[in-house]
C-alpha cells in the first residue's frame, strides 16, 4: 500500500512538473507553398492546438520530419504550437509527410537511437500529424502559346498539302 502511494505521488509529481503530456488531443492544420511562379522555395507550416490531461507548463516538444528533428515553437499567448521548415530553390514534388512529435524524454531516446544507428521508427511518438504536400507547380504542364502555335502549324500543314495536290 505504501509503495502504491509512493508511486502515485511520484507520478503526480511528474505530471505537475509539466514535462510530459498525458492523453494528448491535437487539432492540427497545415500549409505548404504550391505556386512556383510566386516563389522557387517551399515553406511548410504545421500548426496545432494541444490539450493534455496533465499540466503542460514546461512542455517542450520536438518534431521529427523524414529523419530531421526540429524544435516546436509555442505561441506567446495561447496553447498553440507550430513547427515550420523551408526548402529553398528546389522544386518540391507531391509528398505525404508524417510529422512525429516527441516530448523531451522521447526526443532524447530518439537521438540515442539515431546515434547508435538503429531505426528511429522504434521510438513511439507522443502523437503524429499527417499532411499531404501537393507539390510546387507552375500551372498547367502545357503553355497556351505552345498550344496555339501547334494548332496554327497543323492548319498550315493541311492547307499546304491541299494546295500542293491542286498544283500537281
Amino acid at each position: 500500500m505504501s509503495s502504491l502511494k509512493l508511486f502515485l505521488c511520484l507520478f503526480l509529481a511528474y505530471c505537475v512538473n509539466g514535462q510530459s503530456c498525458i492523453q494528448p488531443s491535437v487539432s492540427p492544420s497545415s500549409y505548404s507553398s504550391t505556386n512556383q511562379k510566386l516563389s522557387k522555395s517551399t515553406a511548410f507550416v504545421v500548426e496545432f492546438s494541444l490539450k493534455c490531461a496533465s499540466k503542460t507548463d514546461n512542455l517542450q516538444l520536438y518534431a521529427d520530419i523524414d529523419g530531421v528533428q526540429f524544435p516546436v515553437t509555442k505561441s506567446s499567448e495561447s496553447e498553440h504550437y507550430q513547427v515550420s521548415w523551408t526548402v529553398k530553390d528546389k522544386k518540391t514534388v507531391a509528398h505525404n509527410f508524417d510529422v512525429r512529435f516527441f516530448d523531451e524524454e522521447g526526443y532524447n531516446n530518439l537521438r540515442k537511437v539515431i546515434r547508435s544507428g538503429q531505426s528511429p521508427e522504434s521510438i513511439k511518438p507522443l502523437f503524429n500529424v499527417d499532411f499531404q504536400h501537393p507539390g510546387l507547380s507552375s500551372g498547367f504542364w502545357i503553355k497556351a502559346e505552345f498550344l496555339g502555335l501547334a494548332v496554327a502549324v497543323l492548319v498550315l500543314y493541311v492547307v499546304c498539302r491541299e494546295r500542293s495536290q491542286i498544283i500537281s
Partner: protein
Amino acid sequence: MKLYLGIVLLLLTAFAKGDDEKAKIILVKRILNDIITERNDLAIEYNLYNIGDGVATDVELADSSFHESDFELISGMTSVKWSRINAGSNVTHAIVVQPLRAGDFNFTSAVVQYVSEKGVDVTFGYSNEIGEQEILSLKEYNRLHASHMMEWGLFALWCMPSIDVPLLLYYLSKRKYSKKVKKN
C-alpha cells in the same frame, strides 16, 4: 605548494570561463517569394542563430509589422517562443500572409528577446530591415504570369470564321469536282 597553486589557478580559469558563457542571438528575416502580389501567399522566414557560447533561454520572437489592415495571416504565428536555443545552433520559423492591397510596402524588423545568461536581464535584438518592396496588383500579376488559356481560346474563336468559311467552300467544290471527274 606548487601543486596547490596550480589547482587554485585551474579552478579560477574554470570559473572565469563559466562567467563568459553568454548567448548571442542573430535574427535574420527573409522573404521567400520572388514576386509579392495582393491576394496571393507571401512566405516570410525567420532564422535565429545563437553565435554565443552559452544557451539562450526564454527566447521570444515577435513581428508586429503585418497589421490586420494590410495583411491577412494565412498560416503560422507572429509571436512565438522557444524554451532554449543551444550555443552554436539555429532554429527556423515561417509564417504565410496575404497582402490585402497593392503598392509599395515597407517591411520592417522583427524583434527577438532572450535571456543570454542566468540572472541577467532580458536582451533584445532586432532583425534586418527588408525595406520597401513592391506588391503587384492581381491584374498586373495575371497579365504577366497567368496561363492566358481563355485569351487564346477566344482568339481561336475569332479566327475561325475567316479560316473555316473559305476552307468549307473549298471542300464543297472539291467534292463536286471529284464527283464530276469520276463520272467522266
